[in-house]
Structures are given as structure tokens and as C-alpha cells.
């Protein structure tokens, strides 16, 4: 179980949107994590510096929020390490061929009314829902 958090999720979502608008206004780039990260995988993109800075900021913020000790960020997973490795490989391969993930397609692409992003988002949402159903209700979890 996780708590239903409409307000925190709405505010957090708006910050994700603000970040996308900032990155477009300042660097003219789509704030898609797949695209940003891919430029740091060999062959490394010539414009690696802003990519690394964006990732550093994205990692530093939750560390600062929890480090200051006033706020805890819920994080729950009981997935065994082999499944994290397998899942990570599947996600990496999928987002590369699919040209994006929830941040790039689901937020930036849909906001641009991109046909590819609408379709990609519908496909990966459906695929995720089916996978969660199979894993949780047919297989009874992964061990």
C-alpha cells in the first residue's frame, strides 16, 4: 500500500513541468531523461556538460531534501537484485528504441502535441499495466 497523495503529487508534477520549461527556455532542450542520459553513454555527445549538470542537480535535490532532515521521502521496493538488473536492461533497451520515457514522451512530447509521443505513452502505459497485473496477480510477485 502507498498513501494517496493528490496535493503532493500535483505540486511535484508541476515542478517537473517547470523543469521542462526551464530547460527549453535556457538550453532549448527536451527534459527527457532518456535523451539526456543517452548523451553521456559512449559515444559521448559533444554537449555533455549541460547533460551532466542536469543529472547532478536531479540527484542532488533529493539528497539535500532528506539530508536537511526535515522531510522524509518514501521509497519502497522489495525487488530482488537479479530482477533489478533484468528490469534495468529491459528499460534501457526499451527507452532507446522507443526514443524516450515518461519524462520525454509523457510530459514534453505530449505538451508539444507530438503524435509519436501520444502513441508511445499509450503503448508503454498499457504495457506497464499488463506487466504489473501479470507479476502481481498471476505470478504472485517476483522472487
Amino acid at each position, binding site marked *: 500500500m502507498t498513501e494517496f497523495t493528490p496535493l503532493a503529487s500535483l505540486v511535484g508534477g*508541476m515542478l517537473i513541468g517547470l523543469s521542462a520549461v526551464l530547460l527549453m527556455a535556457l*538550453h532549448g532542450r527536451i527534459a527527457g531523461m532518456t535523451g539526456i542520459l543517452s548523451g553521456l553513454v559512449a559515444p559521448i555527445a559533444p554537449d555533455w556538460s549541460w547533460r551532466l549538470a542536469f543529472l547532478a542537480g536531479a540527484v542532488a*535535490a*533529493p539528497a539535500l531534501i532528506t539530508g536537511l532532515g526535515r522531510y522524509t521521502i518514501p521509497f519502497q521496493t522489495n525487488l530482488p537484485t537479479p530482477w533489478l538488473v533484468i528490469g534495468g536492461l529491459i528499460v534501457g*533497451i526499451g527507452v532507446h528504441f522507443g526514443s524516450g520515457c*515518461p519524462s520525454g514522451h509523457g510530459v514534453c512530447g505530449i505538451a508539444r502535441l507530438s503524435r509519436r509521443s501520444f502513441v508511445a505513452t499509450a503503448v508503454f502505459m498499457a*504495457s*506497464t499495466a499488463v506487466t504489473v497485473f501479470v507479476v502481481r496477480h498471476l505470478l504472485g510477485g517476483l522472487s
Partner: protein
Amino acid sequence: MRIVAALLAGAVFGTGIAISGMINPAKVQNFFDFAGTWDPSLAFVMGGALLVTFIGYRLVLKRPAPVFDTSFHLPAKQDLDLPLLAGAATFGIGWGITGFCPGGSIPALGLAEPGALVFVASMTCGIAVARLARGWLQPSPAT
């Protein structure tokens, strides 16, 4: 200055991911678990992010260029091809298994969660493998 700007945009992204609950794999999986412990919070994340990005992009893209670049870098591709569909479907399998997407997992590194580190390392390998595979699948045109 342009690096500081990217760092700031990344920090806003990481804060949004943390506050919204996208950083929590269990919460992400619960959003898709209609037959079980459904948590609709992530609809609010998507709604908030799209609202801000949709309006913000329209204001920003009216300008001739971003602050730190000579032009906006927007994907030009329009066609719905097999890699997009198969990649998105594949990504969904990994997202469903783990509850981690690229944008959720990278900020989770800031929580010093070992699971996030394993996932991000594996996902990065997945992207690298996919890049190599795409090189083999699409041999460069004969010169």
C-alpha cells in the same frame, strides 16, 4: 552560467520527482495495479506536469531562441515506426517489473538506495547495448 542553469533545472526536476512520489517504485507500480492496491496519485503528477509544460512551452517557443543556444532542439520525426512501438512496449515491461523509469530512478540515487544504483547501472548498460545493436541492425549506407 549555462552549466549552473542546467544544474538548477535538474534540481527542480529531482525535487518534483521526489515530492510527487515518482521516486518510489512501489507507488509507481500501485498506480498501474487497478486490480489490487491502486493509488491514483500519479495521474496528478502527469496532470500537473502537463499543465505547466503545455502553457510554458507555448510561451517559450514563441521566442526566437533559448538563452544559452542559437536554436531550439526539437525532435522532427513524425512517423510511427516499429522501433517506437516495440521500444515503448518493451520499456513498459521493465517499468512494470521494477517500478523504475529513467526519470524516477536517477533522482533516487540521491536517496543512497542500493536498489536504485543497481537499476541505473543496468539501465545505462541497456542503453549502451541498444546503441550498439542499432548500429548492427542499420548498417551505414554504402559510400
